[in-house]
């Protein structure tokens, strides 16, 4: 396949192919006639049924990556190999290695590859942190209140720093940084989806944060568009609108339990094996003060309008059957009508 001469079509390499977003993007690229070649790098086998994507088992931290970029002769790299869950990769130390050192090596190799014209890097709105003195809507040029001290936030911040450095050195490359909100969808398995699937949703006592979600189809479409080039810059990507955590919990029909902020850490450590939710101390401010990015730039400069609002994304996730509501909405509507009718009958009798 690598023998085919550089023709009309684009040649795309995806890192972190085993992830849901990467797999979905590979499927979209396979269906795209303008894409001549799709390659994917990861350590584990991709989970999606891919037909013409070439899977390359490689570690991004290995200098071999330069050979992969060279031999596949790709002109576009979509870097999705940044994980947010230490549990899935075997600990925080390894997660940092894979995220930060992997990105560093990959970008170093890409800088040497003259064919590369487009680079898309997945980041997260987590770079903004979460603080009570934050504005209600983060713009792409907002700076976080507190410098992240560790964890996923620090990883994505460093990944962005390396990416910006790459952009400065290779000004001929369209470098796009996508700051995705929490991605949700029927086929997504993340901390967010596991959290909303818990039988009882834990919240922080006295706090009700605003949340912002991104439907997986919209995420894939934005990445696909970015991979075509011509969208340099940093963009927040999220569904329009926000919901309160309490509102989201009501929508899922699950009861909530309020936990005092001081107890969240110890409790989540005890419950982690049962819940499967990595509720690290990093997530505590998010559950207190929330985090919302402004998507004005995505709409006006990128020219993309997400199909699913934050609310619709959650509703679609619920409707897909991933969460079985304890309190059913149609039954609530029925109950309301019955009570109302009973009331009007009673009132007719007494007048």
């Amino acid at each position, binding site marked *: 396949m690598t023998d085919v001469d550089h023709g009309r079509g684009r040649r795309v390499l995806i890192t972190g192919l085993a992830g849901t977003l990467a797999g979905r993007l590979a499927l979209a690229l396979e269906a795209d006639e303008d894409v001549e070649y799709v390659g994917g790098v990861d350590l584990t086998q991709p989970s999606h049924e891919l037909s013409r994507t070439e899977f390359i088992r490689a570690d991004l931290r290995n200098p071999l990556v330069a050979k992969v970029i060279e031999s596949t002769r790709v002109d576009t790299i979509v870097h999705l190999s940044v994980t947010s869950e230490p549990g899935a990769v075997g600990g925080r130390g390894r997660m940092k290695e894979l995220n930060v050192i992997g990105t560093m090596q990959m970008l170093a190799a890409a800088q040497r590859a003259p064919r590369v014209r487009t680079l898309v890097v997945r980041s997260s709105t987590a770079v903004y942190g979460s603080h*009570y*003195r*934050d*504005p*209600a*809507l983060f*713009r792409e040029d*907002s700076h976080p209140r507190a410098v992240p001290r560790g964890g996923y936030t620090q990883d994505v911040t460093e990944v962005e720093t390396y990416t910006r450095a790459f952009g400065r050195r290779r000004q001929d490359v369209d470098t796009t940084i996508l700051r995705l909100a929490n991605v949700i969808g029927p086929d997504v398995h993340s901390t967010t989806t596991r959290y909303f699937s818990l039988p009882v949703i834990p919240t922080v*006592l*006295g*706090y*009700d*944060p*605003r949340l912002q979600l991104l439907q997986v189809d919209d995420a894939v479409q934005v990445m696909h568009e970015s991979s075509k080039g011509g969208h340099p810059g940093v963009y927040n990507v999220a569904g329009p*609108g*926000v*919901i*309160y955590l*309490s*509102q*989201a*919990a*009501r*929508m899922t*029909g699950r009861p909530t339990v309020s936990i005092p*902020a001081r107890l969240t850490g110890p409790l989540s450590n005890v419950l982690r094996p049962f819940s499967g939710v990595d509720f690290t101390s990093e997530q505590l401010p998010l559950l207190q*003060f929330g985090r*919302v990015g402004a998507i004005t730039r995505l709409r006006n400069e990128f020219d993309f309008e997400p199909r699913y609002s934050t609310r619709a994304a959650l509703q679609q996730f619920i409707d897909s059957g991933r969460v079985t509501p304890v*309190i059913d*909405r149609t039954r*609530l*509507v029925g*109950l*309301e009508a019955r*009570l*109302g009718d009973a*009331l*009007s009958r009673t*009132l*007719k*009798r*007494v*007048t």
Partner: protein
Amino acid sequence: MSSTTEAQIIRLDSRRRGGEPTATTRRRDRRAAAVPQALFPPTPVFDAAAATDLEHAIRGMLAFIRRRLSGDYPIDDYGFDQDLTEHVIMPLSRPLYQRWWRVRALGIANVPDSGGALLVANHAGTLPFDAVMTKLSVYDEHPSRRHVRELAADLALKAPIIGSLARKTGNTLANADDAVGLLTAGELVGVWPEGFKGISKPYRDRYKLQRFGRGGFVEVAMRAGVSIIPVATIGSEEIYPIVANVRPLARLLGFPYFPVTWQFPLLGPLGLVPLPSKWVIEFGEPIRTDQYGPEAADDPMLVVEITNRVRDTIQQMIYRNLMGRRSIFF
């Protein structure tokens, strides 16, 4: 006055029992008939119109409960929950507005029917009841029933329960980004530039305006190209008259101030009841900023000048209204 009590009892009973008069109903009918008419004057519990109103109210309440239980209500990007504000918070604060402080709103016509404007008001009263009353005043008295979106202190938004409640009732953090965003979206924004300095000042300094921040509100108005509406609130100073501020205790508890008022902590929990002063909220004539253009926000001299003009206007409005009042409580 549609029917007598006696007739009602028979009708209800006969319907419940399918119309067949049984031994029990007949006995009860006789007993009812035996009761002297004077004990049960023939006043119906409801007339038809009252019943329709009641049904309307209860059906509205049921719909509200259903919406809350299923998460079926909209909020805006800043977290304003209009459903909760209009159906719970405002009905709860309306008795304070109408009965307790008997607020009189003056010059409400100075608030525009649509489009952005910045309400700038004096701040007093230990707890920010003046902000709650101003919001209710504009919503209840203005023909367009507009919501004032308040710019709140960061410490208020940090506090548990109060912080989320503040966001839900339309508050957002007092910063330029949020304020300009709301104003350009055509919202009415309210700001109390004296901040903690105004709200925590001792009673002897009542109605003396403190420093108006650093004029950030003027920059915001200029950048958004909206008018500033000066607002003077009379009566808010007397709800918890502050005698002293216990700084060590405030520092210990992490509060911006710890007030000793006439009634608190002397009267214990009863001391939390605000005094029923008579309030006036006057909305002054708009001060335009659009003629300067958004670049003027970078001209500190002009910003200071307009800040002082707004401050003086509000101080004059306060003095005028203070002269006009007979006593603190009437």
